[in-house]
C-alpha cells in the first residue's frame, strides 16, 4: 500500500513538473491547473506513505536517510504550496517541483529498513532536532529555487537580452523578497534544530563537542552561510544577486552535508 502511494506521488510530481515546464514555455492556463492538481494529488499520496510508514515504525519519518528524503520532499511541497498561495508565482512550480521529484526519486533507491528509536528523553530531542532541521531545509530549498529564478531574471535585465523568460517570470523585487522571507523562516528553524541536536547529543551522554568532525563541520558551515545571509540582509542590506547566490550556495552545502551523512 505504501509502495503504491509512494509511486503514485512520484508519478504525480513528474507529471506536475512537466506541466509546469510546458506552462513556462507555452502559457496554457489549463496545463498549470493540471499541474496544480497533480501536486495536490502527489502530496495526498505522499502523506499516506508517510502515515503508513510512521504507524509501522512508531515514530516520525526522520530516522533513516530514506525517511529524511521522504519527509524533506513532503515539506518542500507544503512550503511551495504556501509560497505559491502567498506570492502567486505560478512559475515557481517549474523550479521547485522538479527538485521535489529528484529528491523523492533519489529516496526510492535508498534502503527502506527501519531504525529503532529508544523510548526516552532522547527520543523527544531527536524528534525536535530532525523535524526542525528538515523544516529549515525545506524553506532553504524554496530560497534556492527563488535564487535561481532571480539570477535568470537579473541576467536578462542586466544584459538587456529580454528573452521569453523575462516576460514569464516575476519581478526581481518579488523574487528577492521571496528569497529573503523563506530564509527568515528557515534560518531560525534550522538554528533551533541545530541546538536541539546538541541537546540530544548530551542526553545520549556524549560530551558536547565530541561529534564526528567530518559530519559536524559541514553542518556548521551551512549554518554559517545562512547566518551570513540572514544578518547580512538585516545589517548591511545584502540583497539581490549576492543574496540569490548565497541561497543557492547554501542549499548546495545542505545537499552536500546530507550526502556526507549517508556515506
Amino acid at each position: 500500500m505504501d509502495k503504491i502511494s509512494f509511486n503514485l506521488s512520484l508519478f504525480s510530481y513528474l507529471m506536475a513538473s512537466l506541466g509546469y515546464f510546458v506552462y513556462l514555455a507555452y502559457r496554457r492556463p489549463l496545463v498549470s491547473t493540471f499541474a496544480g492538481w497533480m501536486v495536490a494529488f502527489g502530496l495526498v499520496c505522499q502523506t499516506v506513505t508517510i502515515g503508513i510508514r510512521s504507524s509501522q515504525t512508531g515514530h516520525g519519518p526522520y530516522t533513516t536517510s530514506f525517511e529524511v528524503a521522504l519527509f524533506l520532499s513532503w515539506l518542500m511541497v507544503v512550503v511551495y504550496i504556501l509560497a505559491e498561495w502567498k506570492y502567486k508565482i505560478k512559475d515557481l512550480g517549474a523550479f521547485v517541483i522538479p527538485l521535489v521529484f529528484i529528491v523523492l526519486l533519489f529516496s526510492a533507491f535508498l534502503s527502506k529498513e527501519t531504525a529503532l528509536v529508544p523510548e526516552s528523553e532522547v527520543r523527544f530531542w531527536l524528534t525536535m532536532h530532525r523535524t526542525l532541521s528538515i523544516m529549515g531545509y525545506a524553506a532553504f530549498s524554496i530560497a534556492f529555487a527563488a535564487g535561481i529564478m532571480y539570477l535568470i531574471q537579473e541576467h536578462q535585465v542586466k544584459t538587456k537580452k529580454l528573452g521569453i523568460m523575462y516576460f514569464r517570470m516575476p519581478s526581481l523585487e518579488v523574487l528577492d523578497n521571496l528569497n529573503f522571507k523563506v530564509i527568515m523562516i528557515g534560518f531560525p528553524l534550522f538554528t533551533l534544530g541545530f541546538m536541539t541536536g546538541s541537546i540530544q547529543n548530551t542526553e545520549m551522554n556524549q560530551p558536547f563537542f565530541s561529534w564526528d568532525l567530518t559530519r559536524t563541520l559541514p553542518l556548521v558551515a551551512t549554518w554559517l552561510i545562512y547566518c551570513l545571509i540572514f544578518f547580512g540582509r538585516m545589517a548591511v542590506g545584502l540583497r539581490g544577486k549576492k543574496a540569490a547566490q548565497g541561497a543557492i550556495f547554501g542549499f548546495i552545502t545542505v545537499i552536500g552535508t546530507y550526502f556526507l551523512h549517508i556515506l
Partner: protein
Amino acid sequence: MISTESNLVLVGVNHKATPVEIREKLAFNQVKLEASLEHLVRCPEIVENIILSTCNRVEIYARVENTDQGIQLLKDFICDYHGLSRGSLDQYFYSYRDNQAIEHLFRVSSSLDSMILGEAQILGQVKDAYNTARASSSTGLVLNQLFEKAFNVAKKVREETGISERGVSISSAAVELAKKIFDDLENHSVMLVGTGEMAELAAKHLISYGVKTVYVASRTYERAISLAQTLNGCALDFDAFKEELYRADIVITSTSAPKFIINKEMIEKAIHKRKNKPIFLIDIAVPRDIAPEVNDLENVYLYDIDDLQNVVNANMEERQKEAENAMEIIKQEVAKFNNWFSILDAVPTIIEMRNRAEEMRKIEVEKTLKNLSHLSKNDQKAIHQLTQSLVNKILHKPTINLKKKIQSKDGHVYLQAIRHLFHLDD
C-alpha cells in the same frame, strides 16, 4: 431549404488599404448608429447586422439571404448612407463570406488586424459595436453567438499568446522594465534630470502606473518648477541632484549636456546609501548623460535610448511571432464555430423528423384505441406513454449521430438522406 453555409458576409474598409481621407468619409457616427442598424435590418435581404466603425476601420457584419446580393447591398448602403458614389470607392472595399468572415472577425477582435499588433482598444470597440446592435435589436441568434465567440477568442489569444505582453513604445518598454525590477511601482520614486519631452512622457507613464514621488532637476530652475508642478512633484536645484540621487528608484536623464553628467562613483555612492536597493537608470539623452560603465554596478540597471529601441524592436518581432500562434487558435475556433453552426443547420431537420414521427404515432395509437374502448383511462395513458418512449428510443441514436455527422465534411449528405428517408420535403 437546406443551407450548409452560414450566409454570413462582411463588407468593410480598413487602415491597410484605405487612406484616412476615405475612411473618415465612410465612418458611422456613433450617435446615429442605431438608426443605421435599424434601417439595414428592415431590408428583407438582411437578417442580422452589426456595424463596427472605428478610426481604423468601417465594417458591417451581416447574415443575409443571399451572400452575393448581400455584399452588393451592403456596399451600396455604406456609399448611399454617406451620399457618395460607389464607383470611385469600390476599389477600397473588401468583402468576405462565411468562414473567411468569421476568421476576419476573430482576427479583428484579437487585435491581429490592428495597426499596432496586440493593442487592447479594439476589443472594447467591437464590444461596443455589438452592444449597440443588440440594443437596437439588429442582431439575432447567429451574430450574437458569433460575437460572443469572438470575445472568447480574443480573451484566449490574450491569455495564451504573448501578443499584448510586450511594450511597443519607448515609454511602455521602460515601464515594463521598471515593473520587472520593482514589481509594484507604487511607493517608488522617479527623478527627472533634464526636462525633455520624452522624459516627461515616460514620467507620466510611470505615474499612471502608481509612482508617487517625483523629483525634477533642470539647469533652468524655472523649467524644473513648472514641470514639477504638472507632474505634482518637487523641483531640485541642478547642482543638488547629485546628492539626492539616492532618493530615486528610477532616474530619467534627458539633458543636452555634451558630456556624461552621471558617473560610476556617483551611482556607487547612491547605491551604498540605499543599502543596495536597486536603481533603474533611463538615459534618453543624445549625447548620453550617464557613463555606460555604471551598468557594471550590482543592483544598477542602465538603459540608454538605443537599448530601449532595441527592446521595442525585439518586442515588435515577438508580437509578430505570437501572431502566428494566435492564428492557430483562431483557425481552431473558426472550426468550432462552424460545428456549432452546422448543428444549428441540423436542428430544423431534427425537429421536423421528430414531429413527423410523433404525428404518425398519434394517428396509429388513436386508430388502435378506437377498437379498444373497454380500456380504462389509465391503460390508454400507458399505451400513449409506451409508444412515445418507443419513438424516442428509436429516434435517439439517429439524432445524436446526425449532430455528429453534420460536423464532418460531407455532413449535408446525411442531412439530405434523413430528409429523404423521412419524407420531410413533400
